[in-house]
């Protein structure tokens, strides 16, 4: 779907295409912009420190060159692209960078990042891979370490009030995203998948307050639409990791499908869970990032003792979304070399079968060059379910 060149969405498009435009300005004004990757970096702490969290993105249009001279090509291609753009100084306006323990690709390339980029601040946040009382406690300590290191870097204490306030604005942001998703429930949806993902991606390049007002504008605009500008078509759920380039979603929509929901990182995985607003803020954050974010990286033990029960536990949110958004089919989009998602493909396939939702599994390498091949697969899939 091509975008309406008006109001909110034209701003969105600008921020999406010239990604980092606003952050560059803010940096020039003397603000500290802290880059991050993955859903596991607690943005609230960065916001509370007075710095601006900025999600580092890859580009499927830019061939990976310099990055490959420092990093093996057996790293997940999405992550290699982020690294490549960073060493090519696309994000030269960053003051620092935070990398979490999201997956092997992130852990093993941390040295290459931290020595490869000339940034004065670098921090690694370890994330437990199990979710229980002792790991929440450990994670809390790890978050405090992060907090202290940011304090040292910015020269300013991060108080409980700062954290509470940050939690509040970030939660607001998530409420707005939820509201945007509500517009996808009609058939055809009022907002296209392309527009939505572009909006969320644009938002992740802005200070949270600005992101909030951008989302507000988008909400007003979509609400004002009355009739959907879209055609009816199969309703598609996209399942996978980080999909920060819109081309895949665009392709699905161009071929007549409507992307109505997802589990991707810059979609529901990142934006749906909220932090508890009262109580100790660090505990609330530990709880949100470890327990509430549903990522294959976090091991969830099989409490049911049966395979069926286990996949219901692990992938239940997919079923919820599939029903809530009334989907006709799903695309499981996984990058080559991605261990956390890669190992779940067989179980996820079975889960989709149990939901009776047809599934297309795609393994891809994060390059615009593969869109031609994907086109045939996606078109055939839409023909199959249509």
């Amino acid at each position, binding site marked *: 779907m091509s975008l309406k060149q008006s109001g909110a969405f034209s701003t969105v498009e600008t921020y999406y295409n010239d990604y980092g435009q606003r952050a560059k300005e803010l940096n020039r004004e003397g603000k500290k912009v802290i880059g991050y990757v993955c859903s596991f970096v607690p943005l609230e702490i960065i916001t509370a420190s007075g710095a601006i969290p900025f999600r580092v993105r890859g580009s499927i249009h830019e061939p990976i060159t310099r990055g490959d001279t420092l990093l093996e090509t057996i790293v997940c291609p999405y992550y290699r692209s982020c690294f490549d753009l960073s060493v090519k100084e696309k994000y030269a306006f960053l003051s620092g960078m935070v990398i979490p323990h999201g997956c092997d690709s992130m852990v093993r390339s941390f040295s290459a990042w931290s020595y490869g980029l000339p940034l004065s601040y670098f921090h690694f946040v370890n994330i437990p891979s199990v979710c229980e009382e002792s790991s929440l406690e450990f994670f809390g300590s790890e978050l405090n370490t992060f907090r202290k290191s940011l304090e040292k870097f910015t020269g300013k204490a991060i108080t409980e009030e700062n954290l509470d306030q940050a939690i509040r604005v970030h939660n607001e942001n998530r409420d707005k995203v939820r509201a945007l998703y509500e517009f996808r429930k009609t058939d055809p949806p009022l907002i296209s998948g392309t527009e939505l993902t572009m909006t969320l991606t644009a938002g992740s390049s802005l200070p949270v307050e600005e992101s909030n007002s951008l989302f507000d504008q988008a909400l007003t605009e979509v609400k004002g639409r009355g009739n959907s500008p879209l055609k009816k078509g199969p309703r598609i759920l996209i399942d996978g990791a980080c999909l920060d380039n819109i081309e895949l979603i665009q392709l699905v929509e161009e071929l007549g499908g409507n992307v109505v929901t997802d589990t991707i990182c810059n979609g529901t995985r990142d934006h749906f869970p909220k932090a508890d607003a009262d109580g100790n803020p660090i505990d609330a954050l530990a709880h949100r990032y470890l327990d509430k974010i549903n990522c294959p990286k976090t091991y969830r033990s099989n409490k049911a003792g049966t395979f069926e029960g286990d996949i219901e536990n692990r992938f239940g949110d997919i079923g919820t979304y599939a029903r809530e958004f009334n989907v006709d089919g799903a695309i499981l989009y996984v990058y080559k070399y991605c261990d956390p998602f890669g190992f779940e493909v067989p179980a996820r396939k079975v889960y989709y079968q149990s939901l009776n939702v*047809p599934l297309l599994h795609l393994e891809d390498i994060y390059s615009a060059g*593969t869109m031609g*091949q994907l086109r*045939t*697969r996606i078109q*055939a899939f839409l*023909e*199959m379910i249509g």
Partner: protein
Amino acid sequence: MTKVVILNQGIVASIIGPTGPEQRRLANRVMEEALEKISLSFSDITFIVSTGYGRINVPFSDKQITEITCHARGIVHLFPEARTIIDIGGQDVKGIKVDASGKIVDFVMNDKCAAGSGRFIEVIADTLEVPLDQVGERSLQSRNPAKISNICTIWAQQEVSSSLAEGVSVSDLLAGIHQSLADRIVRMVSRLRVEPSVIVTGGGGKNRGLIKALSGQLKQEVLVPEEPLITGALGAALMGKEIVEKARQYNTPLETKERILEAVKIL
């Protein structure tokens, strides 16, 4: 290859034209030939569906449908018992799983490396100076298939010509090449959990050597349509017919293009 199938109650005409990337030109030419053959005018054709790698480059098509759907449709028409379809083309190889009602339930496709497609055979056949329509038969004469250790088409080409100089026979080399391609194809389609009947179609279906290697590695019989090259076009025609019938039934208008063939520029 560019193929045309014209359908009425049964197949009225089918034409197989040359292969090549100048798809637009070839589409026009092959269509023209087909019409000539049965002395129909272009405007007599009610509906045209294009398919295949170059489906968007067919200027006169009314609808584009993927080769996955079309091959499945064509094959199911010919073999209602088909459950697994393997389409071996010059650009890619596809595996398609269909259920008892002929509906596609899953499919896989290879990626952009010539080593996993019919092109692999073409290149090697060219190196060994064996005409494509003989590679299959020649490979069947082999007693001792050569082991091809390189995956890359270009490297394999080098390997084959060195082996040839060392005295390895052409049939042994061809048999080795077929094993090697069959191996890659089987690895890919096994993701579908192959069930009988297995049908091999596309240009690769014309190659008896490849069929033998495939059935050996799949450990089951594979069936091949009489004319494997046209099953995609046949499927497309069948789908076209359905569209027309549906439109007539519900009395909805058919969206078609103007029936004009472009002048064919000879390169």
